[in-house]
């Protein structure tokens, strides 16, 4: 059975340019405080980006050739995360049939 999984390309956030001043202590303190603020900002915004990427990942499975004795395939594309987004079903899964 062939199963493939594809994920969207992650977009790297551009890193903030850092500069370190020299000379006076107060200048260094300002730079350090600014740097700290940048790091805190990355921590907050970066987490939000990760959540967005997880919720839009798509699983695609190729249909296996029917000649194989056992065929497993995904009926439809569904979005993650762990539980599917609603509505799950766009059409009936199966039907009652006289047996």
């Amino acid at each position, binding site marked *: 059975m062939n199963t493939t999984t594809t994920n969207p390309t992650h977009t790297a956030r551009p890193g903030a340019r850092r500069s370190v001043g020299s000379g006076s202590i107060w200048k260094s303190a300002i730079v350090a405080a600014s740097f700290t603020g940048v790091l805190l900002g990355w921590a907050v915004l970066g987490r939000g980006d990760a959540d967005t990427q997880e919720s839009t990942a798509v699983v695609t499975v190729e249909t296996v050739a029917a000649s194989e004795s056992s065929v497993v395939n995904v009926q439809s594309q569904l979005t993650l995360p762990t539980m599917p987004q609603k509505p799950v079903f766009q059409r009936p899964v199966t039907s009652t049939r006289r*047996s």
Partner: protein
Amino acid sequence: MNAFALYEHRFFAMNTDVAAWIWSTPPHAETQLRAVETLFAEIEASLSRFRPQSELQRLNAAAGQGSVSVSATLWAVLVEAQRHFNASHGVFDPTILADLVHAGYDRSFEQGLDQPTPVMLAHHNVKASSLDRRLVLNAQARSVRLAAGVGLDLGGIAKGWTVDQAAERLGQWGPALVDAGGDIRVTAALAGEAWPIAVQDPFEPAQDLCVLRIAEGAVATSSIGKRHWRRSNQLQHHLIDPRRRRPAQSDLHTVTVLAPTAVEAEVAAKVALILGSHSGAAYLEAQGLTGLLFHRNGHQQQVGALPIDTELAIA
């Protein structure tokens, strides 16, 4: 990280198309779906009357010769069959093999029944009696004794029972649905959403009448519309009325029943069809079941409240 998805597996077993779905991740989904196919094959090998070496056929061959020890699978199905015999007051009867063969259903339907049968089993004139006299179950020894001339056919219960076994095992790994020729069992809703199952128009199989939403439970359909053939220029079908020992002649063409398990739905659908619309509806209501009765004249009769989805498009 393994991604969750809806995995599907299709195969042929018990003379019908089987499909199973599970919301899970690989490799669990793949492993468990393959296990479903294996389970069907194992149970069919044991319970099919169309396989000369099956455990069921060996038991039938030993009728009148004393007790025979049986496997846990065959035992479980026979116990279930006995329970439904009692609940239906004998309308469901697993000892109808001779009547089925006499009607012409002596081979797998796919081999074609519209043919003269060169050899017919003697239609033993076994008078209808309590099941306990024809089929004796010894729980302590897990053995079975068939009276002479009695033959078992589990076609009206084995498929539903197998669907339940498969679904309950599969359902341990995620929300799942197993469908064997229209005997369907759902283990749990998917993200709180019930599974949509179309109701096929028994008179126009290419069309659906409505969509049912089932979060947990089963649905099965019994019909004279598919497995029928001609013998001596008379139309025969596989649903034997044990009271007449002939194919049922009620006013019903197809019955679809919703029940907690597939075996209950399968048996109830058959019983209701044999009984006819009036007694069949009463039987379903007495059992606390709901369903759809399709009369031979095309009339549709609903029994109880059905979980019909009025928004999802049908074919």
